[in-house]
């Protein structure tokens, strides 16, 4: 039971931020595509802006790892 709860916790820790990241990046990507249509020279900056929300899923990944490793211990 405990193992299942730990696995569920780890899954939620990465799953929910991943959804949030996807939602945020979809908005930024759409806006970026519109900006690029008028100013193609912004391509590099827009790639960086799209990458910014990935912090959420990366930190969620880290928390998931900590939960799993802590659960093993």
């Amino acid at each position, binding site marked *: 039971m405990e193992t299942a709860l730990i696995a569920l916790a780890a899954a939620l820790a990465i799953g929910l931020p991943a959804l949030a990241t996807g939602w945020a990046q979809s908005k930024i990507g759409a806006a970026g595509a519109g900006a690029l249509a008028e100013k193609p020279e912004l391509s590099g900056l827009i790639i*960086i802006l799209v*990458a*910014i929300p*990935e912090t959420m899923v*990366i*930190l969620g990944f*880290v928390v998931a*790892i900590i939960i799993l490793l802590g659960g093993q211990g």
Partner: protein
Amino acid sequence: MIVRMSKVEIIGSRDRLDAVLTVIEEKGDLHIDPSNIGFIDLEDTAEIRTLLPDDRTLFEKMFLEELNDKIHLLFALLPEVEVRQSPLSPGPIIDTIRRTVDRHLAWCREQHHKKEGLLHDLVALEGQLAFLRAVSSLMEGMTETPDLDLIGLTLEGPEVLPELRQQLENLTNGLYELATTRTEEGRMVGLLAVEKSRTAAVGAVLRDTRLPEYTFPESFRNLPLDRKQAYLADTAAERRRDLATVDRDLERFARRWGPIYNAADHWLAERLTIIRAEGQVFESRMCFFIYGWMPTRGVEPLRGALEGRFTGGVHLQELEIRREDLERIPVALRNPAYFKPFEQLTRLLPLPRYGSYDPTPFIGIFFPLFFGLILGDAGYGLLLLPLAAWLVFKYGDRPLLGDGGRILGACALYTIIFGLLYGEILGDLGSRLLGLHPLLFERQDNIMAMLVFALSIGFVHVTLGLTLGLIAAIRHRLKKEALAIFLNLVLLTAIGLLLIMFFGVFPDLLARPLIILILTLTPLLLFSGGLLAPLELLKTIGNIVSYARIMAIGLTSVLLALVANMLSGLTGDIVLGAVVGILIHLINIVIGVFASAIHSLRLHYVEFFSKFVETGGRPFQPLHRRDPDRLAKGRHPIG
């Protein structure tokens, strides 16, 4: 590095202005400031005013701009050819060129009009030929008799056939024959045979159902089919010959007149640059005044050039740069050869302000380091190195690809270094086949160690940024800001030490003093940085935590490499296993390169540069000649 600039003023008599601007353009390193704010005192502004062009200059500007536009129109009508450099100087013969360009423009337009007509004819002829080739096969099944009419059709698709057949059935009582086929281009065409007496009625039905009857031009409508084809083929060949003649004439014209128009284009661009620069100059009753900024190392050469040309008649002096000038000083970046390619990455950001830091050297040092930390596989690095070398050797003269290759080369080297430190060559293939042991630790088995390592790197990187910000604040004598940054640094270090003690790395002897220090310094932080200062501290802690992505993305790269090796082993077949392994490793390299690059850049732009780089610099745009190599190479049309 941000090039050190000097504030200069050039004064001379009015009649020498053109010559002085020509010398400045030749030197190419003076950015003329269109505003005299900061260059002269308020009481002098009544005496020194913006130079207004006289009628002669205005007329010359309009004349040259009109000629420039016409030459560009001419270039747009001519094919691109390599031309020799013209030995003639266009300046003395510009009036002649002006008279000639209208005639040449009219001729080129006529040739283009002729060419368009020929192309239009050719397209129509080829369409007719395609139709005839398609229907000729249908005609073999039909007998041509005097009382029968053959009608060609173009059909949208097979869906129109049932309705058409029904209507023809009703109209001709079944006395018709319709055959369809497709042309080489995929169009559906048909051949309808009906009695001559019913031709008109059938034609009306075809019009009602919007099926165009294929009609041939009058000139060969009554020819038999085989002679129609030959006629069309001969006519199309003749059109192609005419087209080739027009192209040859245009190319001959471009080779003959291209050099002089190319030279005229360059001369006009330089002359117009001088005239437009005159709009940024100031004048008093007798003298002109040019205010601007230039690299400090260029001041003496320009002074020498003006002295040599005008022997004391034109005076250049350096003025004192005041604090309020800092926002207006234009920014030029110059970096050593290793860092220069990284300016491509710096260009994604706004220019730094003069007096701030050029981010290029920092990206040059830390970007490949972080790239290597994240990708960290010696095998991948060894694969990326030849790719980088190929980019540099093949595209070295193209800025984006050549510099991209150089950056990739540096990143590949660090990837190899960290691959050896982690003991990774194509995942665990190095340890399994070559017995490679990590010099640091294995990433997949020491996740917490890697996380601590990544956060430590983040701590060092962010505190370096804060330290640079502190130095900048002290340099600009911003005491409160300097104090706030210093307090942030001390509090971050104290919190870091407390965390280390919490995890039992150090004994907790200093825990109480550190807590007292934090509680004492926090009100000071509020005083120096305002109410939001504690939030800024929390944000900085968040910035450090963001470096955990070095562990996270690196771990995914390692695990994917392990999956590649595991899957290739599971296939049981050496060839299939190699294919599977290579494919997955290739995908991992592509994802790894992009992810490592983007996240390394993001760490720099968001977490690091925000601590010390002030953006908002003006670009340095000196008055200069166009690229002389372009004239020497004789590229044409202008590019």
